[in-house]
């Protein structure tokens, strides 16, 4: 059989062997390349796990700070107010004349009203009632109206077709991220305006903030996220991690605006 006569190898047989080996070598090369990419990805995942630890500690720190703030508010404001009210309503009240009694009761009532307002404020700072009752769009509008009211900056927002609300916990996290981003812009960017837009997709929601001040690029954001400073940015990251969201900081192609885009995937029941 000519096919098996190896002493005088025909060009056809030789060509077939060479081509076959080349094809197999090519496939093996591709597979090995892919293995290398996978190893690299595993390394990246480990780094991400490290980053997650940093985020976790940042979020614990934030929680502690929040608790301390609430404790301080209750201890320094609500505590003295209630103590003062108690002073007005002490045992000697019955021995006083009618006018003094009425005056004491009136003062105590005023102090109690003030305390109620204070506790309401603390409670609202924990969970804005507009967000709870009317959703993210109203809460953001409310928040932006307050900033506009101060007259320091022109802020506006536009929601496109936000009809099906996200889960309340998710809305709160998104709202906190927006609050943190806006606060950062107010504090550091020296911007003259902030424009927020929301776009609703079937699988995700995109929220984009534009401003004309000094902003961050994504490289800056990653650098700050890894460093010991930038607790607010770490909180943004950890909050977005919970809802499997992503954030992208970029400069506009015209180099005159900075934009931050948040990508929030929707759950099945939010579509």
């Amino acid at each position, binding site marked *: *059989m*000519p*096919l098996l006569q190896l002493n005088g190898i*025909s*060009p*056809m*047989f*030789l*060509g*077939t062997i060479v*081509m*076959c080996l*080349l*094809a*197999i070598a*090519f*496939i093996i090369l*591709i*597979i090995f*390349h*892919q293995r290398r*990419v*996978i190893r690299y*990805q595993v390394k990246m995942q480990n780094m991400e796990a490290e980053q997650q630890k940093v985020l976790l500690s940042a979020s614990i720190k934030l929680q502690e700070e929040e608790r301390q703030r609430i404790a301080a508010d209750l201890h320094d404001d609500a505590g003295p107010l209630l103590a003062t009210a108690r002073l007005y309503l002490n045992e000697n009240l019955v021995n006083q004349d009618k006018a003094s009694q009425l005056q004491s009761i009136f003062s105590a009532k005023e102090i109690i009203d003030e305390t109620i307002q204070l506790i309401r404020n603390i409670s609202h700072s924990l969970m804005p009632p507009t967000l709870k009752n009317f959703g993210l769009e109203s809460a953001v509008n409310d928040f932006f109206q307050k900033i506009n009211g101060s007259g320091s900056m022109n802020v506006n927002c536009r929601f496109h077709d936000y009809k099906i609300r996200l889960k309340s916990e998710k809305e709160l996290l998104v709202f906190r991220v927006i609050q943190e981003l806006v606060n950062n812009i107010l504090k550091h960017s020296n911007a003259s305006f902030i424009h927020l837009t929301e*776009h*609703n*997709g*079937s*699988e*995700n929601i*995109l929220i984009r903030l534009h401003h004309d001040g000094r902003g961050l690029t994504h490289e800056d954001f990653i650098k700050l996220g890894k460093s010991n400073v930038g607790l607010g940015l770490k909180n943004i990251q950890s909050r977005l991690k919970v809802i499997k969201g*992503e954030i*992208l900081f970029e400069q506009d192609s015209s180099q005159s605006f900075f934009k931050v*885009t948040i*990508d929030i*995937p929707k759950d099945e029941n939010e579509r």
Partner: protein
Amino acid sequence: MLKLIQEYYFIFGIIPVIFYLFLSKRIHDKGLRVIVFLLIIGFCADLYSLYQAKNDRANYVTFNMFTLVETLLLFGYFYVILTSVLNRSIIIFIGLVFTIVFFYYYIRIDGSIHYLDSCAVIENILIIFLSIVYFFKEISKPDNLDFQKKSQFWVVCSYLIYSAGTLFLFLYINTLPKSEQQNDYVLNYIFLIPKSILLTIAMFMKNTTPLRKKFQLT
């Protein structure tokens, strides 16, 4: 052994189809339907060729037409798996050029009495080219880590090895004496074995849903 392969080579083509039918409920890859259709046509063509050979009748029309159908269906398969506009335009272009070249050779050499080896060679070169394009496209995707788990990978591997293995056979077949042609054509049947095995593996692969693109509304 070679004799056995020579007589029962047509069975190799139908094995992946049998597995496809068994596993059809869990297979969602539409591209595989093209391959299965091609394998069924190949099986029918092989049976018809055997029938013609038994009656000592020339069978070049079936062989040549199968080359055309196989090439166009494989182009169709690559059209499904290579989604970029440029790649698809190239596939349409080379598909049209191949069809024109095929009919040019068919009329010039008379495809009813000659085997169009040039067309088979062109087909193999084009399949190798598209396979390389496919692999480069796959490795250039950063989030495509386990593309070996896709049926497409195994289908492309099977046709790449088969086309590479039979390229020189089709290149030299018409230069050989008739007696040697018969013997050396066994190479084609031998390469049907890895092709069939790889296609069968492809039938077992589950296609995973692609990841959603970030920062784009979906």
